């Protein structure tokens, strides 16, 4: 197996003495998709956010190594270098993640220029290029528009374009499709998959949607109550779930069975 790009070792997160994540350990291989599933409050998002030092009032212990570099305990300036450039992130509900009073161009170029020394014109053409890779038909128009003028699916594409424009080694996707309708959801997942293969970045996919996991993930970790209860390949997960919680999670799936109403 190749050298892991992201190694999480005994990660613990606590808010004022109350432990939220108790000792999570997993590895992410380059070019692979690792799904993290679990119910709400199981510590999925806390795990991801703590890696980037985004939980301000939390105490984080353990180790998170990105290609050999320890992330826990970095200062603000060092963290800023990691955020965006080394680890990109996309979120659910893209509409709220854009500032309604700034154009897409302003928000895109500001990210680019925070990490690269670019002139505004260069940043603009770079943004245009990246927007065209995420399947937006009129990138010039999108650049000039405000977030509320775009649909949720389009905004999610823009968010993906911004996240991948800095060529991060790891992309954290925190429920990227939860707020979208099923068709857009599928398009976005395909897009992430396609771009992931092109850029060979590793993806950490946080979701509670087993369908998304089945389609996207290579490996899966199951979290429950702040603990990692099962770590397996995606086929194993569906064929032979080991932990009782995983089995109950699988059983809670909604499956369409016609003519069989309880």
């Amino acid at each position, binding site marked *: 197996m190749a050298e892991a790009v992201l190694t999480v070792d005994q990660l613990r997160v606590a808010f004022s003495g109350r432990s939220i994540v108790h000792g999570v350990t997993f590895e992410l291989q380059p070019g692979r998709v690792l799904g993290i599933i679990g119910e709400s409050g199981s510590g999925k998002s806390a795990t991801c956010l703590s890696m980037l030092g985004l939980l301000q009032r939390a105490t984080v212990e353990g180790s998170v190594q990105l290609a050999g570099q320890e992330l826990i305990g970095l200062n603000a300036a060092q963290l800023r270098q990691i*955020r965006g450039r080394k680890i990109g*992130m996309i979120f659910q509900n893209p509409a709220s993640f854009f500032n309604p009073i700034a154009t897409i161009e302003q928000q895109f170029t500001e*990210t680019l220029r925070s990490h690269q020394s670019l002139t505004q014109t260069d940043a603009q053409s770079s943004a245009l290029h990246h927007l065209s890779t995420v399947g937006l038909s009129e990138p010039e128009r999108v650049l000039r528009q405000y977030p509320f003028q775009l649909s949720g699916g389009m905004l999610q594409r823009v968010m993906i374009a911004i996240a991948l424009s800095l060529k991060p080694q790891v992309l954290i996707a925190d429920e990227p499709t939860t707020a979208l309708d099923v068709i857009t959801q599928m398009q976005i997942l395909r897009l992430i998959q396609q771009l992931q293969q092109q850029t060979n970045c590793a993806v950490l996919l946080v979701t509670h949607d087993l369908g998304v996991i089945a389609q996207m993930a290579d490996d899966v970790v199951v979290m429950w109550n702040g603990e990692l209860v099962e770590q397996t390949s995606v086929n194993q997960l569906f064929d032979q779930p080991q932990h009782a919680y995983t089995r109950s999670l699988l059983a809670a799936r909604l499956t369409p069975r016609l003519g069989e109403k309880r």
Partner: protein
Amino acid sequence: MIIQRLLNHKLAWLGLSLIAIVLLISLFAPLIAPHDPLAVDLMKKLQPSSTTFPLGTDHLGRCILSRLMYGGQVSLSIALIVVMFTTLISLCVGLVAGYFGGRLDHGLMRLCDVFLAFPSLILSLAIVGTLGSSIGNLIFALVATHWAGYARIVRSRVLSVKESHFVQAAIVSGTRSLPIMLRHILPYTLIELTVLATLDISHIVLHIAGLSFLGLGIQPPTPEWGAMINDGREYFRRQPELMLYPGLMLFLTTLAFNLVGDVLRDVLDPRMEKQMRVKTLKTKLENG
């Protein structure tokens, strides 16, 4: 949009037109004032209103109407300068404190507490008293007594905007702090600041008048409403108008800015907008 909604209020009209009148009179005082406000003529002192002196003369025989017209110039321009500086300083302090948090925030807020702990008139008296009374010191004293309250309001606003998803997203993508503060946070603090500044102009005008009344603000012979009230004090029994007219001007100016500030607050409050929309929808439904 905002201006249109502002103009829908009758009170805003009243306030705005009063402000406009006061501003225009002050601005064009040199053109419309009947006399030189500084021309002393002891032979004509304490005259009642006449055709040459529409509002009479003061104890040095100066034309009161002309002095009233010129009086606004100093007060209003100082008030505007003070508001500008307080806004600037409080924006810097509030943004930095709210955004970076931690010890920096703690330190800056304790500094604010120190300034807020003194009654503002006493603090400005102390500052002007020790530094000497000049216009520069007056501005300094007023800014020193006003910035802390503004800074706290900016900071509290920054704290809530900082939690919004788009600021978090900008932080996650490693955007530098300065663009985050300027583009994603600053615009959202401006509404509160605008309302506060408008309401506060009247406060500052009164503050300047108060200091001048005590002889620490604008120095004679420069015409100023507060100082004019002080001048008229000795002749209160014989000629109460000497105090009445400048007091009236202060009253109208203060009222005007308060009215506009109040309406502005209502208009800029997004909750009000929703109520308005519901109201118009209701009337539309009722009318079919």
